[in-house]
């Protein structure tokens, strides 16, 4: 096999090194900074105070001891997994819809990317206005179907739904685009062969198309999960983690602790925990991705 051959060769090794080195150098420049950040999470560092004492795992112990911290963990996971699951399903549906031979599908294709053009934090002010329970345009539409004064981001029991809604609106196009590329990549012969064997539309979809685009869905989900578990802009721009603690995800909690309450050491510990949550989720997703990829090929 050629792969083996090239790998063993000297020039192959050099090429490998040259290919990887720029990327590693560019990113590696930041790695020390992250170690510094981790070290801070082991101290009682505060803004505006010169003294810094090493505390070991004190910040972590204090966090794990508090019910509110565990609430934040569950808020974070509920937010991220709900958002990503909705985006995957809707993204698939939209990709499928816009992959049909329908006239409008071709014309309207660029529109599905529109939500991605606006930075979430800048547009949050507009969402706040649109989602206003009394004067917002969204409730104006809802009033036509008999729903009045829906709370959106203003009430504790609807706030989570509202921020997930914004996440889904913004990032479903991300899925749609990647899945669309996957769908287009399936060769017509395979579909044709399936049809010859008498498969119906739904059968084709579940037995051929879905397994073939699954790696794409999972890759997109991997990136989206990473971002959603870290989501800050959408929530900070609308509810700021409220009302009460209804949408107080880890990133928001870390921001308030570190930059509003100025307890940087403690905030750093929350960020490290958040990072760990993402790390574990990402590891699982990557495993899943490798697995589905192998199955497809």
């Amino acid at each position, binding site marked *: 096999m050629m792969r083996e051959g090239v790998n063993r060769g000297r020039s192959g090794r050099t090429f490998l090194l040259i290919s990887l080195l720029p990327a590693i150098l560019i990113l590696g420049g930041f790695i020390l900074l992250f170690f510094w950040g981790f070290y801070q*999470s082991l101290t009682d560092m505060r803004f505006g105070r010169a003294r810094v004492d090493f505390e070991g795992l004190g910040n972590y112990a204090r966090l794990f001891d508090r019910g509110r911290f565990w609430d934040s963990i569950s808020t974070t996971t509920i937010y991220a997994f709900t958002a990503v699951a909705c985006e995957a399903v809707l993204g698939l549906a939209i990709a499928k819809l816009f992959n049909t031979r329908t006239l*409008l599908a071709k014309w309207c294709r660029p529109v599905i990317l529109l939500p991605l053009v606006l930075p979430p*934090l800048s547009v949050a002010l*507009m969402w706040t206005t649109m989602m206003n329970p009394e004067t917002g345009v969204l409730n104006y539409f809802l009033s036509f179907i008999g729903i009045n004064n829906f709370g959106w981001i203003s009430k504790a029991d609807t706030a989570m739904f509202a921020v997930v809604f914004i996440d889904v609106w913004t990032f479903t196009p991300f899925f749609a685009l990647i899945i669309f590329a996957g769908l287009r990549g399936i060769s017509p012969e395979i579909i044709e062969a399936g049809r010859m064997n008498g498969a119906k539309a739904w059968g084709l979809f579940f037995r051929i198309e879905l397994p073939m685009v699954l790696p794409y869905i999972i*890759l997109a989900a991997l*990136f989206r999960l990473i971002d959603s578990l870290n989501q800050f802009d959408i929530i900070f721009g609308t509810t700021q983690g409220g009302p009460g603690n209804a949408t107080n995800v880890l990133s928001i909690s870390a921001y308030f602790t570190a930059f509003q309450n100025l307890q940087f050491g403690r905030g750093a510990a929350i960020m490290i925990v958040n990072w760990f949550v993402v790390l574990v989720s990402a590891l699982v997703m990557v495993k899943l991705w490798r697995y589905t990829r192998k199955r497809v090929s």
Partner: protein
Amino acid sequence: MLKGKLTSLVLNFLILAVVFVMAFPIVWIVMNSFKEAADINAYPPVFRFDPTLENYKVLFDIADAEASSYGTLKVEFFKPVINSVIISAGAVLLSLIAGVPAGYALARYNFRAKEDLAFFILGFRFAPVLLVIIPMFQFFQAIGLYDSYFGMIWVYQLITLPMIIWLCRSYVEDIPVEIEEAAAICGAKRPQIMLQVVLPLLRPGLVGAALLVFLLAWHNFALGLILTAEKTPVTVALLKLLNPGISFYPVVSAGLVVSMIVPIALIILGQRHLERGLTFGALK
């Protein structure tokens, strides 16, 4: 036949519904940008109104310096848009240059710790930026990268590079290795194969990936806020429109519309490439 027509009707209707949901908030913002404050505040919401260009005049400092504008403070909205274009495009370009070979290597070579390295690179995508924003600020000040395009492009690699590498790797794995083997038999060397055989096949995928990554870079706020003074990206400039002295919703709407122009232009341009080429998988 009737069933086919019905299906088509339903599909078109569904597409229209999707288009409405996706486009409405944006259309609404565009409408608001042409409204006066009173129309924006109206309830029930106003869909027909006398459009005004006043908000755009304020945005580009050509309005009368009266109560409706920002007084003598310059808004200077054009510059941040340019900054964002330079930083985001520069970041994507650098990521492509460094990321495509890396993605290729991760797809085609087998070496010890390959998966670990790939995951390590991905790890930068979710490294907590707020955790390092202070040392990063100090570091940038110390080596003179504070408030520079180069520094911003470098730090944006945290957003763009891991994703380019991973998407690129995935695309390369989709290209049948036999094509490269054929080229190798004809006597082509690795770098040649990569540039002349693989890259053209990758191009459509890369256009899509670059587009996505550009948009994510465009979204960033925190890095620009902390690491720049004059080379601020448009996300920071948009928040600068919230002046307590005036009714700013109309002007913010206009700012959002202006900030959309570049991404929308890119989507329309990129779309054509996506259309033409997302079929490389068919070679399998």
